[in-house]
């Protein structure tokens, strides 16, 4: 039996339709006739009208304030994905010529992203902020462009000027909603100048906020690098005004003479650095600190005055035990200036004339302004950027001679040292990062053939020089988070470039550092590595044995290097030479005489990444296609609480611009939280800095070709943005 059809339904339909439009004449007449006799349908008509009214009274629901941020980030990701997959020329079209053409330019990806970014900014500026008077946009969901408070953290900006090293400190305590980035300016900026030689370009820096240790990597016109340090009292407290000379200055030690090109193959420095007396007794014990050994060609680095014997000794005595604060006492700093020949200009002389040190608390008179102390000169810095140990007491970096006569070694410097000390002697060591108080080093397992070069990870205790091979695959240059839990590293193909190795094709991933760190487990690992590497003898080697092994390795590499060079194709070598200009050597880079081979691996069919197992590597960029967009240079910074990391990547060695993103790490599972990225991939210059709850980077600017400094904060008030205009980003670097 079929259900009875409601005879009123056709009329209800007509009633409803009449609400939304005009009925035909015929339907209107039918409906009217029915309504006259049907109270139920009359009631229904009233109900329809009433319901409509109720519906229309539903209040609009205000969107959350951070909706735009999330949407913009999602759009950025979409654009980045598109740019990677659709915006690139086909892989086959990537000729060497094409790469060469882009050498000094941003890659196509960057240009496209730049175009969209700039346009996006323009549109946001005109649409969401109709006028520069910061009127709220129309609509009920307008985000009012008012700044909101964020936790105070000082942003330093370091710039090399004719006067010296200018250090600005800007207190950042408020930010704007991202759609109205210009609603506030950065707070007051304080500036101080540290004596420094001119004609240098700041390349990278690391500022240890807690004790004001600043490491600076500079490059001169010839492309030679210098690693310098300066100790800035009061950095951690941005509130005192820096007017005039500073209250106290860091330890000032005589400048080291230039590194001798011959030194890498010289006798290794096997003295334990934990015995300061012995190291102070012979400031010239190592060949690299013997003034006589300095070649004539490096006249720029020759000291104006001979180092005072008493100067370094006194300052070293005070400070070698990493008592950094003690080393800043007036006594030690007063003894220093005599040896600070590298510094030039009035501040130094003024410091000397002041004589007696004042009370530390009085900022008015200062014996010596802080100055830039070169700890290693005329080298090529390779591997990760110079970085301070977690306590700020020691600086580590890796460098090779500027003439590329030998491969890189890791150096350390601590307050009181006259110059950086060599930690390794194998000419195969690349500084990766700190793991607690230990230095993490990446080494190529071989340099001798054209198969894929595998990487090993070593952890070295700088105090005892005890060295252990990592128990897992740490990839290349793992950046370990401050908690020591996880690391961001690079997996892929390495290729030899002269005495150095360079990443050719690979990508970043996150690994479980606890499973890799040989010092985290109680039992040292088997001396021979899991891959059966030849240099397993380095593991837990005593200084003497290690020196022997590394000397052998160095010798081996020095033999193999030229041979590889000879095998390189001539034309390719020439091109390589042109490409190997400034910037190219930043990341495990080739020296000027470096030849061939890194450009294209000889069509090796090897799988990517290497087939060696490692503990659960998680790709940082799962969407990245290694074939078309391999990561070849990168920068990784962790936040101090290990809750987030920022990574800057580029596929073009030496590129000024790359892609920066900041991702959150889930502390419970140590997994990457991709859903709530803190900064979606964005175009940025190489040097960026990650603070507690913020990131600062140089973004493209409509007004300035060099870009502009941007800041993004996160936390309970949502995302905040700030544009900091007062700095010249072409010559300076930001640091938290």
């Amino acid at each position, binding site marked *: 039996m079929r259900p009875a059809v409601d005879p009123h339904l056709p009329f209800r339909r007509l009633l409803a339709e009449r609400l*939304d439009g005009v009925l035909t004449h015929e339907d209107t007449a039918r409906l009217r006739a029915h309504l006259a006799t049907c109270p139920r349908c009359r009631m*229904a008509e009233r109900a329809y009208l009433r*319901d409509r009214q109720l519906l229309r009274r539903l209040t*609009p629901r205000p969107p959350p304030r951070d909706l735009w941020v999330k949407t913009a980030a999602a759009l950025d990701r979409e654009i980045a994905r598109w740019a990677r997959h659709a915006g690139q020329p086909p892989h086959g079209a990537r000729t060497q010529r094409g790469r060469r053409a882009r050498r000094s330019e941003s890659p196509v990806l960057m240009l496209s992203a730049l175009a969209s970014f700039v346009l996006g900014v323009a*549109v946001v500026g005109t649409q969401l902020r109709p006028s520069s008077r910061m009127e709220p946009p129309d609509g009920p969901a307008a985000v009012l462009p008012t700044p909101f408070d964020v936790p105070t953290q000082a942003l330093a900006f370091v710039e090399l000027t004719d006067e010296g090293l200018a250090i600005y400190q800007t207190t950042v305590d408020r930010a704007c909603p991202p759609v109205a980035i210009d609603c506030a300016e950065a707070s007051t900026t304080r500036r101080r100048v540290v004596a420094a030689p001119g004609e240098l370009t700041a390349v990278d820096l690391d500022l240890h906020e807690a004790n004001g240790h600043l490491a600076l990597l500079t490059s001169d016109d010839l492309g030679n690098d210098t690693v310098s340090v300066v100790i800035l009292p009061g950095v951690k407290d941005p509130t005192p005004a820096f007017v005039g000379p500073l209250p106290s200055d860091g330890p000032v030690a005589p400048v080291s003479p230039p590194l001798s090109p011959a030194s890498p193959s010289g006798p290794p420095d096997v003295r334990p650095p934990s015995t300061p007396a012995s190291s102070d007794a012979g400031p010239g014990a190592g060949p690299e600190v013997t003034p006589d050994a300095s070649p004539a060609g490096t006249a720029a680095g020759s000291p104006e005055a001979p180092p005072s014997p008493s100067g370094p000794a006194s300052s070293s005595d005070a400070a070698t035990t990493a008592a950094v604060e003690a080393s800043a006492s007036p006594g030690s700093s007063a003894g220093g200036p005599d040896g600070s020949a590298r510094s030039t200009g009035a501040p130094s002389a003024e410091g000397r004339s002041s004589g007696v040190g004042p009370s530390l608390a009085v900022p008015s008179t200062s014996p010596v302004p802080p100055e830039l102390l070169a700890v290693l000169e005329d080298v090529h810095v390779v591997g990760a950027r110079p970085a301070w140990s977690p306590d700020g007491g020691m600086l580590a970096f890796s460098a090779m001679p500027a003439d590329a006569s030998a491969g890189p070694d890791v150096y350390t410097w601590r307050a009181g040292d006259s110059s950086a000390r060599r930690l390794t002697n194998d000419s195969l060591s690349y500084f990766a990062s700190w793991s607690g108080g230990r230095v993490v080093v990446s080494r190529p397992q071989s340099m001798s053939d054209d198969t894929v070069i595998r990487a090993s990870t070593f952890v070295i205790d700088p105090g005892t020089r005890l060295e252990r091979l990592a128990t897992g695959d740490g990839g290349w240059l793992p950046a370990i988070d401050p908690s020591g839990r996880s690391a961001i590293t690079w997996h892929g193909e390495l290729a030899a470039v002269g005495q150095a190795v360079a990443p050719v094709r690979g990508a970043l991933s996150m690994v479980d550092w606890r499973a890799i760190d040989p010092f985290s487990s109680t039992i040292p690992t088997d001396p021979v590595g899991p891959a059966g590497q030849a240099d397993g003898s380095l593991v837990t080697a005593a200084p003497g044995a290690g020196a022997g092994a590394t000397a052998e390795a160095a010798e081996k590499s020095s033999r193999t290097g030229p041979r590889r060079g000879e095998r390189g194709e001539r034309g390719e070598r020439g091109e390589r030479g042109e490409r190997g200009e400034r910037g190219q050597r930043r990341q495990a880079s080739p020296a000027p005489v470096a030849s061939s081979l890194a450009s294209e691996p000889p069509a090796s069919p090897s799988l990517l990444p290497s087939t060696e197992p490692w503990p659960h590597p998680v790709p940082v960029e799962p969407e990245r296609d290694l074939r078309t967009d391999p990561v070849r240079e990168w920068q990784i910074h962790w936040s101090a609480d290990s809750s987030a990391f920022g990574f800057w990547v580029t596929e073009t060695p030496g590129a000024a611009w790359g892609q920066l993103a900041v991702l959150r790490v889930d502390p419970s599972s140590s997994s990457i939280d991709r859903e709530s990225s803190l900064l979606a991939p964005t175009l940025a210059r190489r040097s960026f800095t990650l603070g507690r709850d913020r990131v600062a980077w140089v973004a493209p600017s409509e007004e300035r070709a060099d870009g502009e400094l941007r800041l993004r904060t996160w936390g309970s008030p949502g995302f905040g943005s700030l544009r900091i205009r007062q700095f010249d980003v072409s010559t300076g670097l930001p640091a938290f």
Partner: protein
Amino acid sequence: MTDRAGARACVEELYAEHHAEIYSYLCRMLRDDELAADLTQETFVKAFRAYDTLLDPARARPWLYQIAGRTALDELRRRRLVRFVPWTGESRGTDSSAEEVALRGRLTGEMERALAALPERQRMALLLAEVHDLTGLELAEALGVSHVAARAVLTRAREALRQALTVERARTAVAEAERTLRGAPAVSRPSTLSWRRPGNHREERDDREDRG
């Protein structure tokens, strides 16, 4: 690349203009503010992806609603959201006083619940037609159906809403009665007759409009 940059710019423009209404629409479709925010974001990302399919920029609004509607339907199907979930329809973080919230909740709560009881497509049609003022072809486009089909859906939706509201009012009445019997402080509301107030209000307004 210019196309993408242009698309991005246009989508940002669309966002500035329409994100609030899209969000509101999705809130009522999904009855979940956070999910609505996520899907609003998704809607604009999809709009960016599919920007080439927007042939006439003047028709961007129904086009966006169509994307949002499909996104919501997909999500609803995926999640199999349970209907009749108590949802006051009030957003979190509103700055209204508690009394205002309660009053508005009483007036709109029945409507929100009745809406939630409707089949999704009918709910979409009603929201688009009455809350978001899409008419005729716009409505059809937003629903992704023909003009005729859109009117049919809307017609059925009105009747379904009327019946759903009747049910909701009956429930409210029963609840009030139970509360009164239990001796709880009586709420001064003639629940079963409450609909008359907006009705009378409407007539007064209509009169005013007529006079004006």
